[in-house]
């Protein structure tokens, strides 16, 4: 690519053609304030905080979207630039409630940061409330339009990353606001509860439905036996909430922290991830043998399940009937575990720690009560667990190390990679290959399904049968694959779909911010964790083997079907509450 040179505040630098002023400034170590810009999304230039002056140009330009031209002279600090930025920010602040101490984003708010950066100490403009009502309709996501700064990142995310378009910009001019159609509340839209909008929100206008109080009440109740399961992806991210670099592993400190919080047992969703592989692997083999619906689609990601129920109900027979690891765990905690240890299942309070907001919706699904009780009682995001730890003074990086409890804390490396896009596929192939060929897999790292591209494909030779696999992350990419299935042009056998970019490590319940760079670091940490396991194939998990022997019987057997499998509901994208 052609190189060009520009001067920013007197410093001359060379950048590739097409570089934005914002990126060029970054290269010159000059920080330009931004609010509506997000590295995952194309710039909309709505906030005008990033304006710069360009010699010879009559107008100020927004650095996030303006491209450098050869010889350009840019000022990021002239009086005009400073005044304009300040006024743009003051106007935004004049429509923000400024109840910072009551806000979930206190301390992680981009508006606070930028106000600090620009040295705002007072505001000449009078406060005027924003239009729109607090939306508590969803089991996963709360919308508070009064805090919205109209950056539009949530709308872009919902449309471009997820192809859901549950929310839009309504009205115009001074009274424009972000809303659902006819202001009916997010539960009345095809929202899939993925929470990617929460991750992109610079302020506290979007956040998860909190289960923190619910969990504290259970922990405080001596009658309750409170167990927690932790998803694969949370262990590579929670350290970020305590100021550590992304990708820093603190699994054992996290376990110690959870014990300090008062959980009676700290278990691992990895245990049921291994179990999922056994069940789903056998289901796939069954479909291949008996000519069942193919391609088979994975079912671990609840945002993805919501998506297919709303947008492609005709494809539901393709979805594996396996519950997600969270729900398998919930069903077993109140049956197998309770029986084995002589605990009355009604006293078991089952909590999960998830990188995901859609898991809250999933836990609330009425059909998820195979144990005779609601299988999962509360779902905490990675962020919420960090809040609870901080409430009682736990400083994670300085915690001692502890191990997961037996038996539902035993797992393999195949389970931990569930946190990454491609991980479920890789874990399944590690097992399916050995079950079918009865030979050990030479290289268990199936790198063809790894990576960050939206859609990836691989072909695996299973004793003469070629299995064609595809992996998609982000629902926009998933939609491309589904369109192919509808058109009859998809010749895959097995497709893994995760709703969030990068998979669960980039989930909507993970520490904020998340970006391509941060996702890559968390992904690497997951693979590091996998390599540290002695056992790296799900079918080698001794606790899972014992579970079949003592309790479940055969994979895909009667009991397994009762507890570990589910069914789906076709829904309309327009009247989401009623079945289509």
């Amino acid at each position, binding site marked *: 690519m052609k190189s060009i040179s520009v001067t920013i505040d007197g410093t001359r630098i060379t950048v590739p053609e097409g570089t934005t002023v914002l990126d060029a400034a970054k290269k010159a170590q000059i920080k330009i304030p931004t609010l509506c810009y997000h590295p995952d999304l194309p710039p909309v230039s709505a906030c005008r905080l990033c304006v710069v002056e360009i010699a010879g140009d009559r107008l100020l330009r927004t650095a996030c979207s303006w491209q450098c031209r050869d010889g350009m002279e840019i000022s990021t600090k002239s009086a005009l630039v400073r005044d304009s930025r300040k006024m743009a920010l003051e106007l935004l602040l004049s429509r923000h409630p400024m109840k910072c101490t009551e806000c979930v984003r206190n301390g992680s708010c981009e508006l606070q940061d930028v106000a600090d950066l620009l040295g705002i100490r007072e505001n000449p403009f009078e406060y005027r409330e924003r239009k729109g009502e607090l939306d508590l309709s969803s089991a996963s996501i709360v919308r508070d339009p009064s805090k919205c700064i109209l950056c539009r990142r949530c709308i872009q995310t919902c449309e471009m990353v997820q192809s859901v*378009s549950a929310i839009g*910009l*309504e009205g115009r001019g001074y009274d424009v606001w972000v809303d659902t*159609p*006819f202001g009916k509340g997010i539960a009345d*839209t095809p929202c899939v509860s993925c929470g990617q909008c929460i991750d992109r929100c610079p302020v506290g206008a979007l956040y998860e439905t909190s289960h923190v109080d619910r969990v504290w009440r259970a922990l405080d109740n001596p009658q309750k036996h409170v167990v927690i399961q932790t998803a694969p992806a949370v262990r590579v991210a929670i350290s970020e909430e305590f100021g550590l670099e992304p990708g820093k592993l603190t699994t054992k400190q996290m376990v110690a922290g959870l014990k300090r919080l008062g959980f009676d047992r700290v278990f691992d969703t990895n245990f049921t991830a291994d179990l999922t592989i056994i069940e789903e692997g056998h289901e796939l083999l069954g479909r291949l043998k008996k000519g069942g619906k193919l391609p088979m689609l994975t079912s671990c990601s609840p945002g993805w399940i919501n998506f297919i129920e709303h947008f492609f109900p005709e494809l539901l027979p393709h979805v594996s009937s396996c519950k997600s690891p969270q729900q398998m765990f919930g069903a077993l905690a109140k049956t197998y575990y309770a029986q084995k240890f002589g605990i009355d299942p009604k006293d078991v309070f089952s909590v999960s720690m998830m990188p995901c907001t859609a898991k809250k919706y999933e836990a609330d699904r009425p059909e998820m009560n195979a144990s005779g009780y609601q299988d999962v009682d509360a779902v905490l995001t990675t962020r919420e667990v960090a809040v609870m730890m901080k409430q009682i003074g736990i400083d994670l990086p300085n915690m001692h190390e502890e191990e997961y409890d037996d038996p539902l804390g035993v797992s393999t490396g195949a389970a931990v990679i569930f946190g990454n896009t491609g991980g479920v596929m890789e874990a399944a192939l590690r097992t399916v290959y050995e079950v079918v060929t009865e030979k050990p897999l030479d290289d268990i790292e199936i790198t063809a399904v790894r990576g960050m591209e939206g859609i990836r494909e691989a072909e695996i030779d299973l004793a003469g049968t070629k299995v064609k696999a595809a992996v998609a992350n982000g629902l926009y990419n998933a939609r491309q694959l589904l369109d192919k299935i509808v058109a009859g042009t998809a010749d895959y056998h097995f497709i893994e779909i995760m709703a969030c970019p990068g998979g669960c490590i980039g989930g909507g319940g993970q520490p904020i911010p998340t970006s391509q760079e941060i996702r890559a670091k968390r992904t690497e940490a997951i693979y590091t964790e996998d390599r540290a396991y002695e056992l790296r194939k799900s079918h080698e998990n001794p606790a899972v083997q014992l579970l079949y022997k003592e309790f479940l019987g055969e994979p895909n057997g009667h009991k397994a079907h009762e507890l570990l499998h589910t069914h789906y509901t076709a829904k309309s994208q327009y009247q989401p509450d009623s079945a289509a």
Partner: protein
Amino acid sequence: MSDLNRIDQIVAGYQSTQSPLIYILKDVQKEFGHLSEPVLTRVAEATRIPLSEIYGVATFYSLFTTKPKGQHIVRCCNNAPCWVNGSKDVLEKIKEYLEIETGETTEDGSFTLEFTSCLGLCAVAPVMMVDEQVYGNLTPEKAVAILRDFKTKGSANA
């Protein structure tokens, strides 16, 4: 109210038009009076454009309405030239006469009162529009007389 199937016909008529949404909404509003939830949902189904986007367009343009409106639409100019020539008094009098605020519809459904931006008739300010007709050089009394006229005409038609 018209049959929702009409919407499919309207949409089909714009099959070869690029970015047809505004034309479709215009025709649909003409047919149904306003862009209600069932109506826009049908437009979304027929065009395969997300409902949130359609709703955004419907609320952006002031000539589209998602709520039922009165038989006559009264639009008072609220820009500076009309203002300095007394549009405020005119507006107050109209509100008093119709017993509604701007943005509302009278109980009998005969009038909806709205603001409009400059109509380019500042020479005869203050100005208002009733349906497609423009009235200038208004005084509070003149405005009320015009509306009274519409009322009697309206009931004569009914």
